[in-house]
């Protein structure tokens, strides 16, 4: 075989292409590309606008101490508030979802579902005023108690705030705000736990709680994580409620119950942007970039947690 002949082209298969198929495929592909473009655009805007602040001399940054010391406390404040919110909301939301799906009589369950969804529809500014006017004064005694009894923890070092306008209050308000998101998604996945596996657990002699532990929670775990991350995203980015309650601006501290608190990125941008000029604007955008990266990291972490045991997820 010295001269190899080019293999003859197989006769072109004429597959029928229906217009509806092509339109739908094009529309779907277009949507997919569009969302990527939007994301890339936002990232490009944040980076290009943040560069002047990243390269500026420390003295040019507002407060005059440099970019790191400016953004650091904001990042800390953002994470603190969001983590408290998550710690408050996740167990409560899982409990609510389990109650609605497996414990409550059907009529009560339906009503409760609506009420929880209603919580999600309340604008965040209302939560802010509620936190300021109702919750903060109510929490003042708890602040004092925590300072007295838990003062050995850096979180409760005190001195206790007399107004209740603290990071702790903010975290709890944020927790109430994200509660409906997490519980709605958890409820959805719990109610889809296969009857097949629930009956398998019951037939082995599981009590209702053991059945939930064996067949419902493992099945719903990834949903709970996904819901928590959605909630965390909202808590990280929440602006109004935090801006109303918190008189931020103090440096980095993990003390949750004193009057001096770090602000959060989003509320700091909202409060300062109207008066910012020049490099101050770039600094605020740089802090926005930091928020963007935090959210990205949180979502990737959640993805990784969900995928880690994909074999055992029950999806196969």
């Amino acid at each position: 075989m010295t001269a190899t002949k080019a293999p003859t082209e197989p006769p072109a298969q004429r597959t029928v292409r229906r217009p509806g198929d092509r339109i739908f495929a094009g529309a779907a592909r277009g949507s997919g590309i569009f969302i990527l473009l939007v994301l890339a655009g936002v990232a490009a805007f944040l980076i290009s606008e943040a560069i002047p602040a990243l390269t500026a001399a420390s003295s040019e940054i507002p407060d005059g101490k440099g970019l790191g010391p400016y953004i650091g406390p904001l990042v800390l404040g953002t994470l603190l508030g969001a983590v408290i919110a998550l710690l408050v909301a996740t167990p409560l939301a899982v409990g609510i979802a389990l109650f609605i799906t497996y414990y409550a009589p059907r009529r009560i369950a339906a009503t409760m579902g609506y009420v929880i969804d209603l919580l999600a529809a309340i604008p965040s500014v209302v939560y802010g005023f509620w936190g300021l006017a109702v919750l903060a004064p109510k929490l003042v005694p708890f602040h004092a108690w925590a300072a007295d009894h838990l003062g050995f923890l850096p979180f409760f070092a005190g001195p206790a705030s007399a107004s209740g306008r603290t990071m702790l209050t903010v975290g709890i308000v944020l927790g109430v705000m994200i509660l409906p998101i997490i519980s709605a998604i958890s409820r959805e996945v719990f109610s889809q736990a296969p009857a097949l596996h629930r009956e398998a657990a019951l037939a082995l002699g599981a009590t209702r709680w053991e059945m939930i532990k064996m067949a419902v929670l493992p099945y719903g775990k990834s949903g709970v994580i996904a819901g928590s991350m959605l909630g965390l995203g909202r808590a990280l980015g929440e602006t109004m409620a935090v801006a109303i309650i918190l008189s931020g601006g103090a440096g980095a501290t993990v003390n949750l119950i004193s009057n001096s608190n770090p602000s959060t990125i989003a509320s700091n941008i909202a409060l300062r942007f109207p008066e910012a000029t020049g490099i101050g604007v770039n600094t605020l955008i740089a802090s926005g970039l930091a928020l963007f990266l935090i959210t990205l990291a949180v979502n990737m972490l959640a993805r990784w947690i969900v995928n880690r045991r994909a074999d055992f997820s029950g999806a196969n």
Partner: protein
Amino acid sequence: MAKRIDVSDLDIYYGNFKAVEGVNISIEPRSITALIGPSGCGKSTFLRSLNRMHEVIPGARVEGKVVIDGQDLYGAGVDPVDVRRQIGMVFQRPNPFPTMSIYDNVVAGVRLNSTKMKKSAMDDLVERSLKGANLWNEVKDRLNRPGSGLSGGQQQRLCIARAIAVEPEVLLMDEPCSALDPISTLAIEDLMTELKERFTIVIVTHNMQQAARVSTSTGFFNLNGVGQPGRLIEFNPTEKIFSNPEEKATEDYISGRFG
């Protein structure tokens, strides 16, 4: 270990609907009892009433007596959870817990009993149960892999291993082979014959050859019409049912002249 089951005047309801009426039956220990009959005649419902799985469905209840070795399952103060720990069940579709490994699936029921077991005792139990279910050789190298990665027949044998790991007194099987191919079906039938030595087995099946092959006694359920409760028409040794049934309806059903 194996126990006898005496059912007297059992009526089973879904809410106000009477699904099964007036069942009287005595099931011998160490036997396989097959329940046959057309769809909707109440044989699965009856089977589920034997370990109180029936009442998992809201509004479902029974009247009458189910006595296992002198203990009334529906007596006052009897906890359905305890009943189900004594009476194992295998379902129509294989249902190993997808989030658990093969090993964890087998010991799932034992862990529920919350008796602390040594690791070595647990390993022995897993091996014994999987051998009892004729699955050990196929899975011994991948006990930590998910049970959902097995074939349908293997999954069903895993479910049987899970059920027998807790050493129940009775094993209920609700059409255990209807989702399986003939080879897996044969494997499960052989297994049932072995398990008969240790357990009282009650099986619901649509496959009359299967009933004839494996069972010692057969009960035929039928219903008079849509909306009527199902009844136990005839209960006799399998040989008699398939060669010389007492009731015309039984003969019509097993010879295919149904309706």
